[in-house]
């Protein structure tokens, strides 16, 4: 088992859709014992909150370059393509988790 990966889930407010997306990700990762720690914030605040983060999942557009992998969270809300997204996200998190720094 590698290290715990930090995932920042962002949306317009950091309250509504990000909480929704975060709880879906949490459930999926827990079932598969994937070591992830999830935080939420708003997209306006995102740039200020990235220290220590490994991956971004956002339901709103991320309009700046952070160097971190960014996933589009809208499929989690619509339910179209959500399984594919969760699988991709899980693969990325496992990859980071197992990378020796």
């Amino acid at each position, binding site marked *: 088992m590698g290290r715990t990966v930090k995932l920042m889930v962002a*949306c317009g*407010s950091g*309250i509504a859709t990000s909480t929704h997306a975060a709880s879906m990700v949490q459930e999926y990762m827990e079932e598969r014992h994937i070591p992830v720690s999830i935080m939420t914030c708003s997209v*306006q605040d995102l740039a200020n909150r990235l220290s220590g983060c490994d991956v971004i999942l956002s339901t709103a557009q991320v309009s*700046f370059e952070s160097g971190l992998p960014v996933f589009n969270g809208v499929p989690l809300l619509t339910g179209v393509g959500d399984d594919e997204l969760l699988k991709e996200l899980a693969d990325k998190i496992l990859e980071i988790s197992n990378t020796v720094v």
Partner: protein
Amino acid sequence: MVDVITKVTSALTSLGASVLIPIFIFIMCMVFGAKFKKSLMAGLTFGAAYIGLNLIIGLLISTVSPMVDIMVENWGIKNDILDVGWAVGSAIAYSTTCGALIILVSLGVNILMLSTRLTKTLNVDIWNFWNHAFTASVVYIISGNLIIGLIAGGIHAAFCLVMADRTAKRVQAFYNVPGVSIPHGWAVTSVPIIAGVNWLLDRIPGVKNINWDEKHIQEKWGIFGSPLVLGTVLGLILGCLAGYWSDIPLLLSSAISIGAVMMIIPKFIALFMESLTVVSDAAKKFMKKHFGDREFYVGLDSAILIGHPTTVAAGIILIPVVLVLAVILPGNRVLPFGDLASLAYFVALVPCLSKGNLFRSLICGIVIMSVVMLICTSFGSSMTTMAVQAGYTIPDGAVNITALSAGNWLTWILSKIAAIF
């Protein structure tokens, strides 16, 4: 019949929102087919969120209220209705009798309109039914009739679906979100205002070609996108206006407290969201099972549009603009506070309707916020009454509360119609 309804309503209301709504959420989750354990957790989480919100409202009001009192007295500024922000406003709206029933009403309206093909939008954004709940509650307070309140909430829900359909194609193309529409209860009411402003600007020579660029705004001023920083700075400004500059330790500690309030509120409100996520998921599956065989748009929160660079920039620039506007706008009594961190929401649909133009976002923002503040002023003590009726503790003599996001012309018109009856 009406008598029975009134009796049942008052018996249920006497239980208090912290007991009643968890039970109601639990039943609703079970009806929509969620598992027992999840349904129970959803109900209990709502109860916990309610208790938490009561704490945070207390902290917010006890920190800001004394400063506002002194400010109003010293400066003659009439901004004595405190904007507590949409998050707190929505949680209050959901804690009312109308709020408990609105999910069924709004989903009912959606089912009716889908099956009669009056709409193509399947609204799964349960959280933002709070806008309908607020409309229903205001009308209920004014008319004293629960049924009329719920009908008003239903009209608001129907309006959202119609506007979502009408803007769907442009939203999908502009934001690259295929199959999505935005039936958000506030955002939809901004559409006619934006259309009006654009119509006007297109007819002014010179002005119609102005197109500002937002490249460096987020880079330079992005720190104000942080609720913590924004709250602390607002605390300093309020503190100075309240004459705290003669007592520096008090000034600084007030600023830190207000920053903390701004930072903590979203964390507490997220509990409400956690609870409603279960309802939303169950309702989404239920609706898809029954209506999934046809082509429809999935109705989502306008939050998914907020990340557009023009919107982020406008949300930041509008903060000082709205503060100044609040002082100079004739007749305004609202003190913008909580929703200053969410100004981007008010202009979320502007880029898509005006081709991503920052200048237009700002002009629309000024017009929209003026309308919003005057409507909130007109609602006066409605939200305070609503909060007290829902069992929240508002200290006597404290300022009235409102939320800018509740300043909705549709709610205003419906409440005026209700006042006739």
